[in-house]
């Protein structure tokens, strides 16, 4: 298991009396999409927030490529290769689509003191942004203000911004929410191509998509991971059927 990029072991987060995430362990490997499914309120987004560093874990450990990053603040984790998208589109609405990505790309080489330099002429960040827009199919909208994009396009932009930062690990929080079938296909194709170089955590409600693309599925209920395994195993798991997929087990189709 040399290619484990991100690992969480027994991660727990409490909010007062509520335990939002309870002793969850998982591993993200390069070349795999690891899907986390569960009902609303199961703790999936909290888990992503803990992994990305937006929330501190109450206990447990997070490692990135073998290094313990539990105490690292979010920006440091991001620079080390952890990219994330948000459930609610979190973009820069008044900047152009291109600048949204360029700014994300600039993060890896920030040039804090280069006050005389024109940010728009920064070749590296511009190239990364253009490439990210190409891959997500947003190149035609590059000059538009991001706030004017349709909802589905904003979701794509969110992924593009993620990619522009050249992450190794992608934490995607419901990237397909509100997308039409064509856009969904496009993103799934993109994830398929991204697999090779990235470890991907996918939180998603669209079961068709999850079962199409994921190598491993973890099911969360009330903050705990009740099952983890390959899609056929999960589909056959009786506990998962009762808890999530429904008694008939056909909800996935």
């Amino acid at each position, binding site marked *: 298991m040399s290619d484990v990029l991100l690992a969480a072991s027994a991660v727990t987060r409490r909010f007062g009396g509520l335990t939002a995430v309870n002793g969850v362990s998982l591993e993200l490997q390069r070349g795999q999409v690891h899907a986390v499914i569960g009902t609303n309120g199961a703790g999936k987004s909290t888990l992503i927030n803990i992994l990305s560093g937006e929330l501190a874990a109450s206990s447990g450990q997070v490692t990135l490529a073998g290094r313990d990053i539990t105490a690292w603040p979010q*920006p440091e984790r*991001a620079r080390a290769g952890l990219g994330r998208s948000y459930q609610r589109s979190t973009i820069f*609405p008044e900047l152009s689509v291109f600048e949204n990505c360029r700014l994300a790309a600039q993060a*890896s080489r920030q*040039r804090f003191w*280069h*006050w*005389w330099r024109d940010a*728009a002429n920064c070749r590296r960040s511009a190239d990364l942004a253009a490439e990210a827009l190409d891959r997500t199919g947003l190149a035609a909208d590059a000059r538009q203000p991001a706030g*004017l994009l349709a909802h589905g396009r904003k979701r794509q932009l969110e992924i593009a911004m993620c990619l522009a930062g050249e992450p190794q690990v992608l934490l995607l929080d419901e990237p397909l929410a509100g997308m039409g079938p064509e856009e969904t296909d496009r993103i799934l194709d993109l994830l398929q191509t991204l697999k090779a170089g990235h470890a991907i955590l996918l939180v998603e409600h669209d079961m068709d998509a999850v079962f199409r693309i994921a190598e491993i599925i973890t099911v969360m209920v009330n903050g705990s991971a009740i099952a983890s395994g390959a899609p056929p195993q999960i589909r056959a798991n009786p506990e998962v059927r009762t808890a999530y997929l429904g008694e008939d087990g056909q909800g996935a189709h």
Partner: protein
Amino acid sequence: MRTPLLNRLLPFAALLALAAFSFSGSDYYTGLVVKIMIYAIFALSLQLLVGGAGLVSLGHAAFFGIGAYVAALLSPESEAAGLWWLLPAALLAAAAYALVTGALALRTRGVYFIMVTLAFSQMAYYVFHDTKIGGGSDGIYLYFRPELSLGGWMPFDLSNGTTFYFFVLACLALAWGFLALLRRSPFGAALAGIRINEQRMRAAGYSTYPYKLAAYVIGATLAGLAGFLFALKDGFVTPELLAWEQSGLVLLMVILGGMGSLGGAVLGTVTMVLLQELFQSQELFGDYARHWHLPLGLAIIALVALLPNGLAGLPAQWRERRHARTADASRKAARDVITPARAQGTAPASRLPIQGERHV
């Protein structure tokens, strides 16, 4: 997004016009313009925080006042101080106070940030108001403007009115140019990102705190420059320079002018100072000029209500209205053939939340 050529030339035109004005010959008017230029530097320094980083500070006068007090306190009574050390001393003092107070204030956000900056500036105000350091509430005098001498040779003499005028103008040009450079740099781009969506910036890998602190210190240093020049202009300094009214005034200049551009801060300063002069004028208003605060307040309310994006946003506001009207007309003309979806496509772009949604 490239700014149109005209917009890029406007600052130069404004500076040239200011230079030409020095030859008007009237002491009253050149004095007024010097005041406008000094406040323009002050407003520009706040624009970096408000329009640049989305940090609304209500304590910016502290740095203005500190710059002014350092100039007056460190100047000897019987001779001129050296400009080469007095100016850096004033700027450093303002920057140091900003570094300490900013490090604490920037741990808060939004309305709490406003309150904490206000508290720190009032602290500085009372230090000068209630202690004997700077002559208490009466303030102190600065008898000689500092001079720059390089081994006996004086390139310019600030005690000369015209020279001082051009010195202030040069400071304004340099401050404006520096902030314009900063705005388009990677640093400025990151500040804009922080203003719009700090959460996303952190997720992208920016430690936002050092950015905000650096902006806060730079803004304070430039405010210190404005205060320094103000002390030189009048030759005396009072605690009122640090009072919260002063912070409010400069914030109003920025809001009135528009937070979208540096020029907005300058435009807001010109408008504000001229409105003050107008309503204080005894020739125009006679005895009512004593109550100048009332018409000034009403004028500000009217301007802010009518210009959501400030004076600098006015052309865009007009353009949008014209667009809306033509789109309206074309829709009316083609009402029968256009389907609702199509009509939506031709509608003008909705206004972007340039001033809202600042803090997450």
